[in-house]
């Protein structure tokens, strides 16, 4: 039957000649290609020992940022949760008490902030919605785990380390 698209190619099958029936030249040609690959540059990157360079707009794990004075920027306004198409973000707000001004930047803060990494589709809308520049998807690839509950990341995993701790860590490494 005539092909409607006109792109169909019908192969003609001719009887093989003597050399083709021997198969050996074809086998050697194939082996030569395989052999050549041994001297080519390896494409494999041994993650996690070595990491591929990420693109500039790569979106990885979320991190909740701190300001210059080390206070948490998030004010639990809920815009990230509102914008989240996967409904991955939940939070519980709390009021800042007197004496906690060095911990939280605003009057209100997120006492609980959870992102379900199994739900998250890494679209970056939470980052766009945030009015306080508190959440960025600038982290690494979210690691694999065994239990579903371990994919719900709380503030312990999400909040950026305070600057003092980071400096101490660096000093210890040097």
């Amino acid at each position: 039957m005539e092909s409607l698209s006109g792109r169909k190619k019908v192969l003609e099958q001719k009887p093989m000649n003597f050399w083709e029936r021997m198969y050996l030249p074809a086998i050697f040609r194939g082996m030569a290609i395989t052999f050549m690959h041994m001297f080519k540059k390896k494409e494999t990157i041994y993650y996690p020992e070595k990491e591929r360079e990420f693109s500039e707009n790569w979106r990885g794990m979320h991190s909740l940022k701190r300001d210059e004075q080390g206070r948490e920027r998030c004010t639990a306004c809920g815009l990230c949760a509102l914008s989240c198409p996967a409904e991955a973000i939940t939070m519980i707000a709390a009021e800042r008490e007197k004496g906690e001004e060095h911990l939280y930047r605003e009057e209100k803060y997120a006492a609980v902030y959870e992102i379900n990494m199994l739900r998250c589709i890494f679209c970056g809308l939470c980052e766009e919605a945030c009015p306080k520049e508190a959440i960025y998807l600038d982290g690494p690839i979210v690691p694999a785990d065994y239990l579903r509950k371990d994919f719900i990341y709380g503030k312990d995993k999400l909040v950026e380390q305070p600057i003092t701790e980071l400096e101490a860590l660096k000093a210890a490494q040097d």
Partner: protein
Amino acid sequence: MADKIKVIIDGIPTEVAPGTSILNAARQIGGDIVPPAMCYYSKLEGSGGKCRTCLVKVSKGSEKDPRPMPKLVASCRTNVMDGMEVQNITSPEVQEARKGVVEMLLINHPLDCPICDQAGECHLQDLGYKHGAEATRYEFDRRTFERIDIGDKIQLHMNRCILCYRCVYVADQITENRVHGILGRGDHAEISTYIEKAIDNDFSGNMIDVCPVGALTDKTFRFKSRVWFTKPVEAHRDCPTCSGKVTLWYKGEEVLRVTARKDQFGEVEEFICNTCRYDKKDTKDWVIEGPRKVSRQSVINSNHYEQMQPLPVVKKNLALQAANKEEFERTTKL
């Protein structure tokens, strides 16, 4: 006086009773031509004339005297005349003036919407979104106050107040013995009570509902949830002191907040008492009527994006900017 008089608002003719204000005439027509009002409250006598957001242009004074009014007038305080022609959204002059008014109202406003409990149902937020400029030109320090507890149920954030006087009128007209008022004059004016005296009248909670901004908020709802994560449900109960018709704001099974029902202009339909508002936060106290109708445009109803933010990569790369030009133009807010 029984004769109805004719008035044309934005080209739409209507007939109203003499003595009606332009704002109320526009509200009778309804729709987009209703001027926004921050201080006028139809249920409160003497309110209005303070915020100037309801400015309109009167292009024809009346049938007898067809000269236009020399300046824009506050529609909540100007009564209609027979044959009057009013321009609201059809006049660029009015829109420009309203933009200026919004800028003025926002001068001392802290713009702490991410923190504020009113965000999502705040009239000033709506107004600013519709008419306001994107950036402020104000360079000086905004006036700041410590937040004040008015009783144990009401939180006063004087920073956010726009001095509409609505709460003062509520206290004057609905409750007896007003204990709060405006102290100071001009730039120093502030809502306050002397020595933070608690307001313990049965209807004092209505101050929260009439406040167009987040200056007076419910302390029992403070930071519990954002407005748009709660579900409004109409309910009523047999209340000896008030009508008992309220809106319950649910989150899951829990009633987080009880407010009076608000009409399409954001005004309370019937004032409710403090018992209904603060003490009856259980489903079994109420007879549920059904979910509240929420406008499609409301944040309570939808996730709504109007503007596309270019990605950091696109911001730096001219070629990508050119490639996305059409997309940016399409999503730019009008």
